[in-house]
């Protein structure tokens, strides 16, 4: 398969969830209109916020929406509520699956595989669990996945907890799984930092999807 051009953006500062979401939408629309447009990858961190998929159950939000303390977004992805915050690395992939495999199950499994490879670089053993999309270390969840798709152009992606305040997950039922325990990468490898993980995320995605990256 020929390499495909993808635009990659990896800001060092903390980014507003809404701005990045809008940016993804722009790239998705562009690909829908003309499939010769490039794919788009974004790797970065957000301020504390909670996001829900279109089918999410609001009961999994353990605080009142009127409590204006946190930002809550309802977005185009599958899955239940999750949480983003500094110290968690978020990766969004706006890809045209028509160039890979028109199969969302394949795509979810591919993302799990990619995350497992990334953590492997840091000597962290982790695994997928059948029926519980995401990546796990024992019974603790280290990475979450949520995908939206329109005409086989994907949006959203995955988040890996690196060194973040896991208490923020206590205000929700993460992914709709009761008593779901979360984990940070730093607990399994003291010597890593988020910039290093970011570099490996970029490299792994580049290899796994045969991308030629253009930085923006």
């Amino acid at each position, binding site marked *: 398969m020929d390499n495909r051009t993808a635009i990659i953006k990896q800001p060092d500062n903390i980014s507003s969830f809404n701005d990045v979401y809008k940016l993804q939408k722009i790239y998705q629309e562009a690909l829908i209109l003309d499939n010769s447009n490039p794919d788009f990858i974004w790797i970065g961190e957000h301020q504390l916020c909670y996001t829900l*998929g*279109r*089918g999410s159950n609001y009961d999994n939000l353990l605080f009142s929406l009127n409590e204006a303390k946190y930002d809550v977004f309802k977005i*185009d*992805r*599958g*899955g239940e509520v999750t949480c983003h915050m500094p110290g968690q690395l978020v990766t969004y992939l706006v890809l045209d699956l028509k160039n890979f495999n028109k*199969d*969302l*199950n*394949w*795509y*979810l499994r591919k993302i799990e595989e990619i995350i497992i490879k990334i953590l492997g670089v840091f000597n962290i053993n982790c695994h997928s669990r059948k029926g519980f*999309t*995401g990546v796990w270390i024992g019974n603790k969840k280290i990475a979450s*996945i*949520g*995908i*939206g*798709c*329109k*005409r086989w152009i994907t949006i959203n992606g995955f988040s890996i907890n690196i060194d973040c305040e896991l208490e923020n997950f206590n205000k929700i039922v993460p992914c709709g799984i009761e008593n779901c325990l979360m984990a940070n990468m730093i607990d399994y490898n003291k010597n890593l930092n988020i910039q290093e993980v970011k570099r490996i995320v970029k490299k792994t995605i580049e290899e796994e999807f045969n991308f030629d990256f253009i930085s923006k």
Partner: protein
Amino acid sequence: MSHEIFMPALSSTMTEGKIVEWLKNPGDKVERGESVLVVESDKADMDVESFQDGYLAAVLMPAGSTAPVGETIGLIVENEDEIASVQEQNKGNQPDVSSSAQLELVSDKTEEKPVVQSEIVEKQEKEVVLISEKAAPSFNTDQINAATSNVSSRIIASPRAKKLASQMGVDLAKVHGSGPHGRIQADDILKANGQPVSIPWIGQGDSPASIPGTNLGVENKPETSGNSFGDPGETVQFNTLQKAVNKNMESSLDVPCFRVGYSINTDKLDNFYKKVKQNGVTMTALLVKAVAKTLKKHPQVNSSFSENGISYPENINIAVAVAMEDGGLITPVLKEPCNTDLFELSREWKDLVKRSRSKQLEPDEYSTGTFTLSNLGMFGVDRFDAILPPGTGAILAIASSKPTVVANSDDSISVKKIMQVNLTADHRVIYGADGASFLKDLANLIENEPETLVS
């Protein structure tokens, strides 16, 4: 004219999807390419778009419900003035979506028909009682359906029934609907127009998965003239279809055929079938898929004799023999099953059976088979052999799958479901070893990897 919105397959392994949200309400204008609803499978969701400009006329599966891949979940019409009539037609379907969807799925399995019918009667009895506060213990289905449609004083008919009615000039108001809630089906129009409704009762059975004895299609066959087409002492002329079959069968006498048989353990296949059955998969589609996949590895068994030599067809097309109730048989063809997923294949098969019933098959839909299946499993037969149709090299006869005491290679004894298959082949092009190795691979596929039949 209305267009159906189907539950899409978001992946090759997906059997059903959840409707997350309808982005449009019935009556809303939709543009081609505009998202109409969102479907979710696992952690991924997908926008489902409209393929034409028009109006969303009906939502057949509400948000939050789960539907098998390929199920009709909504209807789009081209003109605004069609909305009302489509909504009327589908009103009966909407409140109890899940149960009517299930009825739809099993309704073409002849042996289960009596059960389905009585369920409908029960449901409608309740409805009649509810509406008219009048018990209807002795009503037959027709009366109840008539009562239901009188009470509601509107005509509910399937789109196909409406089309047929207008083609045949049948007045819908005078037709008794036999479908759920008195819905008028295509068969009702045929009946009203005086055409015999022929239900094929071979080749669409459940052979391996069902227990012999509980589903003897013959006994359940509704109100037919028994097993003969004429009265004692009478000689009845062959109909056109019977004549055609006679000619085909006679031509096989010029072909040097041999037979080779195999016993296949169907335990795994039965389990797999139980899982996918609820998604509309038929046993015929499973068997066709298994045979086509094996033929791909054995092109010799897909070949046929011609004056110029061994002829290898470009495609693998599986014909399946379907007996017609008024005599004769027809062999609807599932084209290129290897390129069609199991769910689509099951839908195609149901459609072919439906249309062979009303004798609406196009010639290329029954004459392009490169290999034929004949399944008598639903009658509980333990073995039979089939006659080779002209122009092809082989036909596979499939018998019933029965619990059988089996001696295993480690000298232990166990009970396994065993299905006998018997290949009849033209020895000019297919030799014993070809047939035997084909059957060995077919058995291996069915016994060990039935789940690979999905795609």
